[in-house]
């Protein structure tokens, strides 16, 4: 309990506020009286809305993180980024090919990568961002999709990139091309969709829909359960 009461001073828009030491950047701002309308989303590290740049006491470096996942420290300077105005090209996924050409056309900036690794250092998800950009340059779309899989689109990579690459948008294209064109199709799935379209299960389901509660209860509790 004692630990929860411990306070630290953080600086918001340059002004010092005393907040509980266990606060994240988001809850620290709220404790200080800011009602957030942008730069905040799921508050659990899944949506990427709360990209933030902060600076710790005595340090010159600007650090990147998610405000809902970063615990404050004494003397920290914090600010919220409301929106990342990055480029997002328009395309029809059914007309693209899952290879390097799609990126040459839609994301030519990826080829400007200077391998500085700033994007990787900025990523709050610890994704090897530079490695997936390099995979795209080599035309290995599936590898880029795999490496970028955990991206939550906070945009910090693009904000910090000196080569003006929009990594996180290129990553979603790599994953969509992989999901649509490169992964094997499930034969079971195709078959089941066809069976349903042909009405194979309609009669049995309609029978259940008309079954009274007592009877259906019995069917439910007596059904065989197979785990997997």
């Amino acid at each position: 309990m004692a630990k929860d009461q411990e306070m630290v001073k953080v600086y918001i828009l340059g002004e010092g506020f005393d907040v509980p030491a266990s606060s994240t950047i988001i809850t620290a701002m709220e404790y200080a009286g800011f009602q957030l309308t942008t730069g905040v989303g799921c508050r659990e590290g899944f949506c990427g809305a709360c990209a933030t740049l902060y600076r710790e006491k005595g340090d010159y470096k600007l650090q990147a993180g998610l405000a809902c996942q970063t615990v404050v420290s004494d003397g920290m300077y914090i600010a919220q980024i409301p929106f990342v105005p990055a480029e997002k090209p328009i395309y029809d996924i059914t007309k693209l090919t899952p290879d390097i050409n799609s990126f040459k056309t839609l994301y030519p900036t990826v080829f400007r990568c200077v391998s500085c690794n700033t994007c990787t250092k900025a990523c709050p998800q610890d994704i090897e961002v530079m490695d997936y950009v390099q995979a795209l340059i080599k035309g290995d779309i599936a590898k880029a999709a795999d490496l970028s899989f955990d991206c939550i689109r906070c945009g910090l990579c693009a904000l910090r990139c000196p080569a003006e690459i929009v990594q996180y948008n290129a990553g979603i294209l790599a994953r969509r091309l992989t999901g649509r064109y490169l992964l094997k199709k499930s034969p079971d799935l195709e078959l089941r969709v066809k069976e349903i379209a042909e009405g194979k299960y309609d009669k049995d389901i309609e029978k259940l829909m008309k079954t009274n509660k007592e009877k259906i209860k019995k069917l439910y509790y007596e059904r065989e359960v197979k785990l997997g």
Partner: protein
Amino acid sequence: MYPEYMQESIRNVEKTRPARLKLAKSGKQLFPRMSAQERDVVLNKFHPDYKPEARREIRIGPNKGERITTKVAELLETFSRINPADFDLDHPDYETDVLVIGAGSAGFSASILAAENGANVILVTKLRIGDSNSMMAQGGIQAAVRPDDSPVLHYLDVIGGGHFDNKPELAKALVCDAPDAIKWLQDLGVMFDRNPDGTMKTKSGGGTCRPRMHSARDYTGAAICRTLRDEVQNRPDKIKILEHQPAVELIKDSNGRVAGAVLYHLENKEYFTIKAKATILSTGGFGRLHIQGFETTNHYGATADGLVMGYRAGANLLYMDSVQYHPTGAVYPLQIVGFLCTEKLRGMGAQPVNKNGELFVYPLEPRDIEASAFIRECTERGNGIKTPAGNLGIWLDTPLIEQINGAGAIKQNLPAMLRQFGRFDVDITKEPMLVYPTLHYQNGGLEINDHCETKLPGLYVAGEASGGVHGRNRLMGNSQLDLIVFGRRAGRYAAEYAKGAKLGKLNLDHVYEYEKEVEKLGIDRKKISPMVLPDYIPEAVKKRQYTTHYEGTLR
């Protein structure tokens, strides 16, 4: 790292682990599943919905006289944010065929299908597009695809989980559209987990009789939501997107049809009007109401705005007496209290155990049963573990996942969970998680039929805001499915309806009429809704914020 005083209990978990691992590997049932009677007992005594203060009568509107969740009743018995007289509805700021309110996966699916069916669409959202509960779903999406499974078995699971209260036509639509929903997502580019032969990897979830959970690691919701978002953004000729502009009231026409909405811009505080031939509510649920003081897994904007707007306009609610508490919310460390610990953890073999390291419940009961059993273990039986902040929890033994599925299984299949706890120095490959039920899902909502129509012409609902699909308890993986199935249906049917719809004169008369009823109850004028965003500013600070005092809502 757990504090020193918890170490003894963790050693108990480690001591019993080899025997529990052996049991899991034997394929035998870990713990007896509850019978119908046992389920009734544990729900009645321990589920938060069954406390006397959980529900009260709603005194106005279409469900007048019905007992519903207390917090929802309070939210509905309030005034509007707006004065209808301020709006010139003869000159709306925007006009469109279909208006979609809410930009999670249901809103995205609806927008895409409406556009494909020829409609011009405006999609409006309170936060950025995609910042939604859809994005946060981890474990999976159900569909009966395996040869040993069928939509018939899926149907039985859905209604058994829902206590046989589901609307049959909605349960049928859910299970029969499921495989096609998966195929649609796959063709749009969602990378579902595959076996080497191309078949989908599927796992069991609570209350399923077959392994039916399709996943994309433990970012399933994110993988779906970000793919749909990208697709929506690729159609600027048909879909116009307005972000940071929540809808705060529906507009109707002189024939009683729903005909658009009033928007509020969160940054410049301006109001805008949209005239639409059809309107789809895909606004999600109510987690941020913190019902009964519970922490929630829900995103910042989950404030039930759609319920308020729809109810005020005259649409009725169904099963608004039922709240879902997810069995496994984090209770330690402090910074992640209430956060979701996906059911996939149990699907992959993690076992819930008490402070002595003993199993006390079948790990994959439907959510309301499982959650109630956790509460019983912590309260009546006194077998919970207390955190430094005073919360109780039970252990979810995650190191078993690695022992059952092989080293590296967590990193490969549950990277979000590993990362989430790792950020706060708990290594779930070596240490168990401490969990307790957390406010997760709105089981009921605005009643729809299998065309997603409400009783108001021109108003459609899809996703968590709707009621009837899941009865009084939703199963894991059926929410992601609901978003896609009913999102697509809403988009398709709304676009068809819009083709023949001719609107009369627009008005906001229903707001006046509703407010008259609120006034009769003697309710404080300061109580307004929709809430739009919750308020977490400390009271001491708020006292000095002299001009921002509308109760329970944004200024």
